[in-house]
């Protein structure tokens, strides 16, 4: 059995454990932990063998194949910038050969990267060629405009699509959702490879009808162009009046909500918090009817660059109930990122529960791991033992409070309590300071 097959097998067992954890049936936390640690050790050895940059990082830190969990936690987590450690100039120049070599250095998908490079006519074409070669690449964008590319070969993609449902279906069943009778409203794009879009795309597979805020597929080239120019997105990628485009888009989804409500169909609304907040404001302004009973709202993606508009979770829930008629108990929030195969879903008590698929970690500002404890605050990290295409050991830029106690909702194990915020930024230091646009 190859290392990838072994990891996939352990991943399957972990999904079974996650399903038991979510349903409360016959869950053995100790056994799940042992299983996860075995998978983490297998992933570490696989990464060292298959990902040259990971191996160099380990060698620098004196971490070998048989490292213990503590050494992996201390020295082998990668930052989210790992996935954009390529040179932007390669994309600008259409040098997909270089991008392929990068995929082979920072990730374990060099072969597909090399195969896809020949003749690629642009970023989207390159991504499509990778997909035809069996590697699904999702990306996310930061305010810098540089995209993070996260590749997933067949085994990692299987984990990506299967991990979430393994423990989320129990929650949906408890809520009594009949997906085939529901309409979905996704405050995002109809398709594309942006990580944040995937949840909406997945939801759309299960419901009767779906309306997208932006009824077109977002393409990487379009996104890069828009980020560079700081212009809103439109179908052609050209600059458009933000007011015009957004007004029309929100009007369309509000009309879809009205139709569903008029027909007595429940709605599953999915969007980023700032988008849902905006929809609520527009619904109230338009005196839109409240959603039909059985509706749910799922928030994902955080506040991002709309931090200034952030409201406390309880306040947003109250806004949603007031505007859409969906009570706090049916408002879920997902904590996820493009590098993560297993999203964390908030419970009725407002905690993001960590499924047994993940080893949660907390670091101090120096990136030294903090000792496990009942209540620890710091920078969040995780060991995701179901990825084989890239290092699934990631330290995020988010500051969290990680608690380990039985939650009022009934779930056991670690959970993130309270709001998730970006960790305090790298302070601007004196005269050398930030030179945001300077490359040297």
């Amino acid at each position, binding site marked *: 059995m190859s290392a990838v097959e072994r990891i996939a097998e352990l991943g399957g067992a972990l999904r079974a454990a996650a399903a038991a954890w979510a349903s409360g049936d016959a869950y053995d936390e100790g056994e799940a932990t042992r299983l996860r640690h075995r998978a983490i050790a297998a992933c570490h050895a696989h990464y060292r063998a298959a990902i040259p*940059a990971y191996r160099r*990082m380990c060698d*620098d*830190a*004196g971490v070998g194949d048989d490292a213990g969990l503590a050494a992996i936690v*201390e*020295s082998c*987590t*990668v*930052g*989210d*910038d*790992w996935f*954009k*450690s*390529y*040179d932007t*100039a390669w994309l600008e120049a259409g040098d997909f050969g270089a991008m392929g070599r*990068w995929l082979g*250095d*920072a990730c374990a998908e060099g072969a597909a990267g090399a195969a896809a490079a020949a003749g690629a006519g642009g970023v989207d074409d390159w991504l499509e060629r990778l997909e035809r070669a069996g590697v699904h690449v999702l990306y996310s964008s930061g305010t810098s405009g540089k995209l993070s590319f996260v590749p997933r070969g067949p085994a990692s993609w299987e984990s990506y699509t299967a991990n979430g449902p393994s423990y989320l279906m129990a929650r949906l069943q408890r809520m009594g959702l009949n997906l085939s009778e529901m309409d979905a409203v996704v405050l995002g794009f109809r398709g594309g490879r942006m990580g944040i879009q995937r949840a909406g795309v997945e939801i759309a597979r299960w419901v009767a009808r779906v309306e997208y805020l932006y009824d077109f597929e977002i393409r990487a080239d379009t996104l890069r162009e828009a980020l560079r120019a700081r212009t809103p997105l439109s179908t052609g990628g050209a600059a458009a009046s933000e007011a015009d485009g957004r007004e029309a888009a929100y009007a369309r989804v509000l009309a879809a909500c009205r139709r569903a409500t008029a027909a007595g169909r429940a709605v599953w609304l999915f969007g980023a918090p700032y988008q849902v907040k905006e929809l609520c404001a527009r619904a109230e302004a338009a005196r839109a009817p409240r959603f039909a009973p059985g509706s749910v709202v799922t928030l994902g993606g955080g506040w991002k660059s709309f931090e200034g508009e952030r409201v406390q979770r309880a306040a947003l829930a109250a806004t949603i109930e007031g505007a859409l008629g969906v009570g706090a108990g049916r408002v879920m929030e997902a904590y996820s990122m493009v590098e993560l195969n297993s999203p964390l879903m908030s419970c009725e008590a407002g905690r993001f529960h960590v499924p047994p698929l993940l080893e949660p970690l907390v*670091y*101090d*500002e*120096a*990136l*030294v791991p903090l000792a496990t404890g009942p209540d620890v*605050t710091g*920078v969040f990290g995780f060991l995701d033992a179901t990825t084989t295409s890239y290092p699934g050991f990631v*330290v995020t830029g988010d500051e969290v409070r990680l608690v380990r106690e039985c939650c009022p909702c009934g779930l056991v194990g670690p959970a993130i309590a309270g709001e998730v915020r970006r960790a*305090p930024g*790298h*302070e*601007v*230091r*004196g*005269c*050398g*300071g*930030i*030179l*945001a*646009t*300077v*490359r*040297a």
Partner: protein
Amino acid sequence: MSGGAIVEALDREGLFCLLEGGLVRVPHLVRGRLVAPPAIGADEARAALAAAGPRASYARVAAREGRAGAQVLRETLVDRATMRARAERDRVLVLPDVDAAALLYEDPAAERAALAAVPFERACALLEDVAEASAPEAPLGRRLRSLASETSGLADVLLDAALATNAAMLRGAAVREVVDRELGVGGVAGSRFLDGWVELDAPGFDGPTAEILAELERRGGGGGPPPARGRPALRALPTLQIHVTAGNAPVVAPASAARILSTRSGGVVKLPSGAVLPGAALGLALTAAARAHPGAAALADGLSLVYWKGGDGRVEERLFEPTVFDRVVVWGAPDAVERIGALAGAAAIRTLTFNPRYGVSLVGREAFADARGVGGPAAAARRAAADTVIWNQRACIASLVHYVESDEAGALRYAEALRDALAAADAVAPAAPAPADAGWIQRLRRGALAGARWLPVGGAGRDLRAAVVVVPGPFDLEQHPLSRLVVVRRVDRLEEAVALCHRGVSTAGVYPEARRLALRDALAARGVSNVLPLGGCERAWAGMPHDGMRVLADLVDWVNG
């Protein structure tokens, strides 16, 4: 007042000394008067910080009946042996609240006139006594050193140099040298322009109205005496200034104060968090010395040295008053430059900006063949290391990026030599990244620079003290941690590195000398302010331009008379 008496008085007042609970009460200088913070205990100060949020480093204590408000700053203690932050060990500085109105001048014109009336010689005598009182060997200097070293990230050799510099630049002879050079015009020493009107040996030119006046005189019967056509006269008049300083080095705020004082001007220096104490010590020395110099009292009376949290609208919205202040000087951090620039711009106050900049090193291929670099480019690497550790790489002239003219193997050999040089520098002047910087370096290693070749000093991970990173392509300067981390880039020809320079580069250290002379014009044309021999990028001289400006000349009002 003798040096010993200053410190005894401070001890009696519980000021500028370490008190129970790790508390230091730091006075402000407000228009020549020392303003002590209210009597707040360590528990109350720490409670205010706790209320401000986890890990808060700044808090305000509200005024209450019979007691003024205060500001509280938390500073992390440093283990002087390892230069690492001592986890969970800190102290708190308590400072007075700032009343912006008290920093303004009721009659700015009268203030300027009073300053202009101080003979330069008397000003120098006052500053000589200030330097004496704050010198490292003086009791106040020793107290400052003792307090500053507890939290400074600078090794002893750098900290001592900084404190010595702060005193030395106020010595009467030093001030005179700088003023005479920087304000000098047409061979006349600059100090003469401060003391009075100086007639210049310069040809004058009539304007078109001379003809008109002559015609008017003819038509009017003439006979009146023509306007005086003597030699032109010039004087440098004091101004009222606001200096917003940066805390990247403990010399910045005192240097700003020295510029105000040496132009015999008045103004406000905003002390930076992280380096409040040197400015406060200057205030203490100035008030003590001023008593013996009544003829120069206007200088002390015109100066304020205060701290407020950057962006505090209660202070900043009131302070930037165009009818009072003539100049704004802002140093360093981009947010401060942007914010203060906007405030000063809105008020139409002339502003001098020392923008965020950085230094580079250009190492020619001769470094590999140099007889002194036996076994490799060690000689060039040692010099470049010296330019790197200027104020622990936090100065705007410190070298962050080294361009090496070589093939890939040569760049690696240079990087290895540089790693060794930085390790040796760590033995001479130890330094360790602050915790947040250490975390950032780890993020670079495990993120944006994962594909680069890393050569750590002191070990990887939490043991790291410095690092050399050979990068395959461009590096985003935004991500530089300024903690003795050097980015090495290989170039085929140094001219390629020149093309990567721009106005954001303050200083280029070039090796060898022949290449420096050959590249000097091209680098200057790209906006680089200092093109200096590698290893000599910190060297300065009296009257040297700063960021391309003759600063003192911009801080006075040149008046034709």
